[in-house]
């Protein structure tokens, strides 16, 4: 009797194992062919001319370095509060009388920038807000080995957080140093122009809080937008134009000291 039960158990065990393994194998064999039964959607061509093309203008002549934008960005996007993780930050450039350039950005400018050079040594001083330039030919997108960072149809460079493998290639590829490794999600993180806000008709958080309107956000295709007016009124430049990244963040009052 004992042997019979043993045999029965062994038989059952083999049957269940075979069913499990076979089922898994069968599923993995069938899954790739699902596409054949129901033809996969072809790469959808969307008419990009109907979509907005987002861009930002930054007026250095208006920025007072209060750091509200950097603070708002951290709140809006749950960026870690430690002073090395920034999606946007403000730098203070001080050109001294002897020609030296001092660049500083303590805590990204949060809490207001303070001038550390004595007044008598200063030739000129100004603040430059920095953020992702949302290049139309983005080096970070070219560097990503898995397609986890991409340019959205409306011209915003985004990260696919669930698909990113955290290899940091994009962080090295970015010539503007705007990407960082998020210590919580362990994937690459960057400015998204507050994609969750702009698609709801709101302004990005940094633009919303700027007290002097030094940041102008808008649709480059809408000829009546504030951004297009800003570009028409001012002689704007982009950062590092020699790299041909075709960025969509335009600076007014940019001088040669700014890197």
């Amino acid at each position: 009797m004992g042997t019979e039960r043993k045999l029965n158990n062994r038989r059952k065990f083999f049957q269940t194992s075979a069913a499990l393994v076979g089922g898994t194998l069968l599923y993995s064999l069938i899954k790739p062919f699902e596409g054949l039964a129901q033809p996969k959607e072809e790469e959808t061509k969307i008419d990009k001319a109907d979509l907005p093309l987002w861009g930002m203008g930054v007026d250095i002549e208006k920025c007072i370095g209060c750091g509200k934008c950097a603070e708002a960005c951290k709140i809006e996007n749950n960026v870690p509060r430690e002073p090395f993780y920034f999606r946007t930050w403000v730098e203070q450039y001080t050109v001294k009388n002897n020609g030296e350039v001092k660049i500083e950005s303590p805590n990204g400018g949060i809490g207001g920038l303070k001038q550390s050079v004595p007044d008598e040594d200063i030739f000129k001083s100004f603040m430059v807000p920095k953020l992702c330039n949302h290049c139309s030919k983005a080096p970070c997108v070219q560097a990503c080995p898995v397609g986890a960072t991409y340019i959205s149809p409306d011209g915003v460079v985004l990260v696919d957080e669930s698909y990113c493998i955290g290899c940091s290639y994009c962080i090295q590829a970015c010539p503007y140093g705007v990407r960082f490794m998020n210590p919580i999600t362990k994937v690459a993180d960057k400015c998204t122009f507050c994609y969750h806000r702009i698609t709801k008709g709101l302004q990005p958080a940094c633009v919303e809080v700027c007290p002097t309107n030094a940041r102008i956000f808008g649709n480059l295709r809408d000829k009546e937008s504030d951004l297009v007016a800003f570009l028409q009124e001012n002689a704007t430049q982009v950062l590092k134009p020699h790299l041909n990244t075709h960025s969509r963040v335009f600076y007014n009052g940019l001088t040669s000291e700014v890197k």
Partner: protein
Amino acid sequence: MPKLIFRLLLTFFVFVGVFILIQRSVTPDSFGKYGHYRANSLDDNLMKPFYYKGEAKCTECHQDVFDQKASDLHDAVRCESCHTPKIPGTVECKVKPPIVKGTIEFCAQCHAINAGRLEKGVPQLDFKEHYEKQNCIECHNPHAPWELKEN
């Protein structure tokens, strides 16, 4: 066909077949719909919670404060520039009112003397000379800074 060549071809096609099978089963569903990325990721980015509500939303309840602000020099400053939100924008803001203490440090973020701020139309003060110990809001109404409170 020689046996050797037949075996070689067979192995080759088996390898190609296995490669296609693996590739098809590991590629995510919406990959390649708009380009070399997962199209569903656009929705992931869209769905994130927002915190800043925008001035229009604040004005729905606080029209009086907004009018006062519009009448004075802080008209270009948005509500949430000072009143930073503490809860997601979808939650009723009365849960955690974003009250600001108008301390010297807070106002100094914009109004402390800095060579980079000159000629930008923002009044700058040496707070030690101005009023060292008092909080700014003890004299100034933050919504209309030129209206001094009577002490």
